C-alpha cells in the first residue's frame, strides 16, 4: 500500500533468508491425501499429510505445547507485529474483527468473523465498511471489549513513530483528518471521518478509495482491541491485555514467555477456537540446529518461525523415510522471481525479453533456491497457487525437462535483431547465497544462446533504495535482470500483486520492489478489481492481471517458495493452513 509496507515485507524476506542458511522444503505434491479422521496412525505416517488434512485429530483438552523461536519476536504487540508466523500465533491471545479459519489447506484461507459477528457490510462504492461486534467478549481483566477499543487499537497502530515496523495500510487508506499523528500525539483530534463507533457494538470504517478486499484488513492483528487505560505505547508489547483464550505469564523479553488460560474468555462468544492445551511455553533465541534436533527427538513441538529445517536436518529428513513421513512441505505465499527491466536496451524489445524467458534453465533456477523441497515448485505465473485467484498457465514453455527451449530463444533473438545475443547485467543481493546461485544459473543458461551476463552483487540493505530499485541507476548500469522476491501479507491477489505490478509504486528516487512492470493497462485493471465486491469475480481479475504481466515478459517467475517443516510428536490436530503456509497454531492440541 505504501512505502513502509513494501519495505517491511522485503526486510521480512531478508530476515527469513538470512535466518535460515538454506530454507528447507520438499516438493512432492502432497499426495498423502489422508481424510480427516481416517485414523491418526495412518495420517501420521505420510509425508506432507498435514498439508491437506488434520493429522492426529483430537478434542482432548489439557497438556502443554512447547514452542521455540530461532530469533527474537519482532514484537508481540498486535499493533506492530508483522510476520506471518506472528499473526498466526497472535490469534491465541487476541481477537481481531476477522480471522483466518483454523482449518487445513485451502479451507485455512477462508476468512471467518472473530470479534465481529459477520463479514463487513460495504456501501455500494466499497468505501464504507460496517462491522457488528459480538457481545460479551472480555479482556483478561474482566472489562468488556467494545468498538471503542477496536477503534483505539487501529488508530494507535497508525503512529509509525511509536510502531515503526508495523503494517502501514490504515494510515494510507482511512479518511483520517489532515495532520493526524495517532492518539498519543494528537489525542483530541476528531477521527470520526475515518472510524465511527455509533454504539458499543458497531464500528464503521471510511476509506479514501474503494477497497473491496476490506475483510483482509480486518483480520490484521492491529484490529485486536486494546484498552486505552492499559496502553503503554511502545512498552505495551510486554504487558498485553488478552482477549483470546490465553494470556501472558512470566514474560522475559528476548528469553521466554508462557501462555496460560484466560479465565475471562467465554467459549460461547467464540465459535472458532478449540483452545485445547492448558499451557503454551515459548522460548526465544534458540539455536536453529538445536530446534531441529529437539523437534526430531520430540522434546519440542513447534518451530514458531516456520522457516523450515536447517541444511543438516534437511538431508537427514530427506534421506530417512521414517523421518520424512513426519515432515510437511507446504507452499508459502511467496514467489522468488527475477525482474527483466524493459528500460535497459536491448530489453526494451519484447522479443529480447522473451529470449530470456525461453533460454533460462528453469530447473537450474529451482536448484539455486534449494531444489524441489527446500526451494519450491517451478513457477510459471506471479501468483502462487495457494493464493485465491491464481490461474494456471504457462506462456513460455521451456521444454519437457524445463531446461529451456533454445530454438524458441534463438528465434526470439532473431526477431529482436540480435541473432548473436547481447550483453547485459544481473543484480542480486550479495548476502544471499541463493540469489547468487540464481545469478550464476542465469549466466550459464543464457550463455547458451549468446546472451552474456555479468554478475553485479549489491548490499541487501540498499538493494531497492539505491541499486536495483532505483530506475536511473538501473538504466545507467544496464541492470537488465535483477533477482527479486515477494510474499503477500495475506493470501489474496491484492496483497500479492499491488506492490509488484503497479507501475505507480515505482519512484524515480528508488525504493520500490517493482522494478520492471510498467504497464498502464495493468494499473487500470488493479483499480477496477478494487471496486469489485464479488469475491469470485475479483479473484478472477487477479488472475487476468497476472496473465497480462506475463505476456509482457517483464518478470521471470522463479519458484513458488516452500518450506520443510517437522511435525510434533506430542501435538494433536496438526494441520498446515494455506493462510500462513505454516502449521495452524490455533487449533493445535497436546497429548500431554
Amino acid at each position, binding site marked *: 500500500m505504501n512505502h513502509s509496507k513494501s519495505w517491511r515485507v522485503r526486510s521480512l524476506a531478508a530476515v527469513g533468508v538470512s535466518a535460515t542458511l538454506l530454507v528447507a522444503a520438499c516438493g512432492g505434491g502432497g499426495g498423502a491425501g489422508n481424510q480427516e479422521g481416517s485414523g491418526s496412525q495412518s495420517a501420521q505416517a505420510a509425508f506432507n499429510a498435514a498439508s491437506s488434512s488434520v493429522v492426529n485429530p483430537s478434542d482432548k483438552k489439557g497438556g502443554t505445547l512447547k514452542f521455540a523461536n530461532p530469533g527474537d519476536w519482532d514484537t508481540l504487540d498486535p499493533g506492530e507485529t508483522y510476520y506471518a508466523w506472528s499473526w498466526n500465533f497472535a490469534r491465541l491471545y487476541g481477537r481481531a474483527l476477522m480471522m483466518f479459519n483454523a482449518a487445513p489447506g485451502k479451507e485455512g484461507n477462508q476468512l471467518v468473523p472473530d470479534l465481529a459477528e459477520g463479514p463487513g457490510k460495504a456501501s455500494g462504492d466499497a468505501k464504507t465498511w460496517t462491522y457488528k461486534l459480538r457481545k460479551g467478549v472480555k479482556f483478561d481483566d474482566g472489562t468488556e471489549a467494545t468498538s471503542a477499543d477496536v477503534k483505539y487499537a487501529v488508530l494507535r497502530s497508525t503512529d509509525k513513530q511509536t510502531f515503526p515496523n508495523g503494517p502501514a495500510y490504515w494510515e494510507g487508506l482511512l479518511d483520517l483528518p489532515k495532520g493526524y499523528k495517532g492518539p498519543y500525539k494528537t489525542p483530541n483530534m476528531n477521527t470520526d471521518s475515518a472510524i465511527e463507533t455509533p454504539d458499543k457494538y458497531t464500528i464503521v470504517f471510511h476509506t479514501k478509495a474503494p477497497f473491496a478486499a476490506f475483510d483482509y484488513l480486518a483480520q490484521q492483528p492491529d484490529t485486536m482491541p486494546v484498552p486505552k487505560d492499559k496502553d503503554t505505547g511502545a512498552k505495551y508489547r510486554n504487558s498485553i491485555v488478552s482477549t483470546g483464550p490465553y494470556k501472558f505469564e512470566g514474560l522475559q523479553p528476548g528469553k521466554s514467555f508462557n501462555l496460560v488460560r484466560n479465565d475471562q474468555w467465554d467459549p460461547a462468544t467464540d465459535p472458532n477456537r478449540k483452545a485445547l492445551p492448558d499451557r503454551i511455553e515459548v522460548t526465544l533465541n534458540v539455536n536453529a540446529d538445536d530446534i531441529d534436533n529437539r523437534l526430531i527427538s520430540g522434546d519440542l513441538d513447534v518451530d514458531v518461525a516456520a522457516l523450515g529445517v536447517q541444511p543438516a536436518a534437511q538431508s537427514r529428513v530427506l534421506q530417512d523415510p521414517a523421518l520424512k513421513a513426519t515432515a510437511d512441505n507446504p507452499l508459502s505465499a511467496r514467489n522468488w522471481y527475477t525482474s527483466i527491466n524493459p528500460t535497459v536496451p536491448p530489453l526494451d524489445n519484447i522479443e529480447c525479453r522473451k529470449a530470456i524467458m525461453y533460454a533460462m534453465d528453469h530447473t537450474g533456477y529451482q536448484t539455486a533456491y534449494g531444489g524441489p523441497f*527446500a526451494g519450491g515448485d517451478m513457477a510459471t505465473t506471479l501468483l502462487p497457487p495457494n493464493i485465491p485467484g491464481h490461474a494456471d498457465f504457462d506462456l513460455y514453455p521451456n521444454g519437457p525437462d524445463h531446461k529451456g527451449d533454445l530454438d524458441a530463444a534463438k528465434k526470439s533473438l532473431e526477431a529482436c535483431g540480435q541473432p548473436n545475443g547481447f550483453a547485459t547485467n544481473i543484480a542480486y543481493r550479495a548476502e544471499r547465497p541463493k540469489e547468487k546461485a540464481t545469478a550464476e544459473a542465469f549466466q550459464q543458461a543464457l550463455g547458451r544462446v549468446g546472451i552474456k551476463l555479468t*554478475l553485479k552483487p549489491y548490499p541487501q540493505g540498499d538493494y531497492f533504495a539505491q541499486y536495483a530499485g532505483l530506475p536511473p541507476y538501473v538504466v545507467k548500469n544496464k541492470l537488465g535482470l535483477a533477482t527479486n522476491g515477494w510474499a503477500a501479507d495475506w493470501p489474496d491477489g491484492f496483497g500479492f500483486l499491488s506492490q509488484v505490478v503497479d507501475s505507480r509504486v515505482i519512484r524515480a528516487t528508488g525504493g520500490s520492489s517493482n522494478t520492471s512492470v510498467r504497464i498502464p493497462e495493468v494499473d487500470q485493471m488493479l483499480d477496477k478489481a478494487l471496486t469489485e465486491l464479488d469475491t469470485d469475480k475479483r479473484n478472477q481479475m487477479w488472475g487476468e492481471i497476472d496473465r497480462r504481466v506475463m505476456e509482457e515478459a517483464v518478470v521471470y517467475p522463479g519458484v513458488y517458495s516452500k518450506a520443510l517443516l517437522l511435525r510434533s510428536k506430542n501435538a494433536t490436530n496438526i494441520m498446515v493452513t494455506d493462510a500462513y503456509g505454516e502449521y495452524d497454531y490455533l487449533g493445535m492440541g497436546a497429548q500431554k
Partner: protein
Amino acid sequence: MTLPPEAGAEAEAAIPEAVLVGAGQTEGRSLGQIAWMRLKRDKVALAGGAFLIFLILVAIFAPLIVKYLGSPPNEFHQELIDTAGGTLAPIGRFGGMSWDHLMGIEPVNGRDIFSRVVYGSRISLLIAFLATLLSVAIGTTLGIISGFIGGWTDTLTSRLMDIFLAFPLLVLAIALAGVFPDQAFGLQGNQLRIALLIFIIGFFNWPYIGRIIRGQTLSLREREFVESAKSLGARRGYILRTEMLPNLIAPILVYSTLLIPTNILFEAALSFLGVGIRPPTASWGGMLSDAVVFYTQPHFMFWPGMAIFITVLAFNLFGDGLRDALDPRANR
C-alpha cells in the same frame, strides 16, 4: 706402512666450508653462494620451495591443466546433483569424486572443484605477489630513508608507521571494497577488484617491513665500512646504493617470502567475507565462503581449505629456511 688412499680426502674434509668448494681457486665465495649451500642442506625448506615452483607452474598453465584434467571452472554439471531427492548434494561418494572430477563437484550447481581450485591459485598468487611487491617497495624506500637520514624525517616516518599499524585494516578493507564503484581508473569488473585488493592489502602492510628495514639501516649506518666510505667523501646516494642496499637484500627477501602467505590468507579472508573477487570467478576464499552454507558436505570446504593450508605452509617453511640460510645469527 703405506698411507690409505682415503687420507687425502679426510684432509680435505677438515678444511673449513667457506673455502671448500673454492679449493684450488683463488677467489673466496660470495654470500649468495654460502646461503645457497646452507639452503641446499635444509630439506624442509627445499620441499617448500619445490612446491611453490609447482604451484606457480599450475597457476600459469591452469587453462592447459583444466583442459586435460577437468572441465571449465564455471561450467554447471547439474545432472550430477541429487535434485530429485532434494538434498542437492553431489551424487556418489566423497562429493562425487571421479576421474572426470578429481576433487568432486560443488553442491547445487555441480561445478568442478578441481578446476576451481586450480584457477583459484591464479587469483591468490597474483594478488599475494603483487601486494607483497607493493608493501616491500613502499616499506623499503621509507625504511631506508627513515633510518639513514634520521632526525625529523625519521620521527615523521616512524609516527606514520605507527598510524598505519594501528589501522583497523579489515574494517577499512570491507568498507572500501563495499563502496567502491564498478568502474574506476579505466578498469572495471574483476580487474578493478583485483587492483583494489592489491592496493588494500599492499598499501596497509608496508610498515611491518618498513620497521625492519629502518632498524637494519640504523645499525648499518654505524658500521665501519659506511664510516670509511663517508670519510672518503662518498655521497649519500652512492652509500645508499653500494653500501646499504646490498646488505639489506637478505632481510627484504626473507620478509617478502614470509609476507606472501599472510597476504594469501588476507585475500582469502576478504573473499570469504564477500568483498573479494566477484563470482563466478573462482578464488579460494570465495569457495570457502560458498561452502559454509553446505557444512553437511565437508568435501566442498576441504579442497580449497587444503589448498590455502598447503600453500601458506610451503611459503612459511621456505621463508624460514631462507632466513636461516641468509642470516644464521638470527634467532628463530
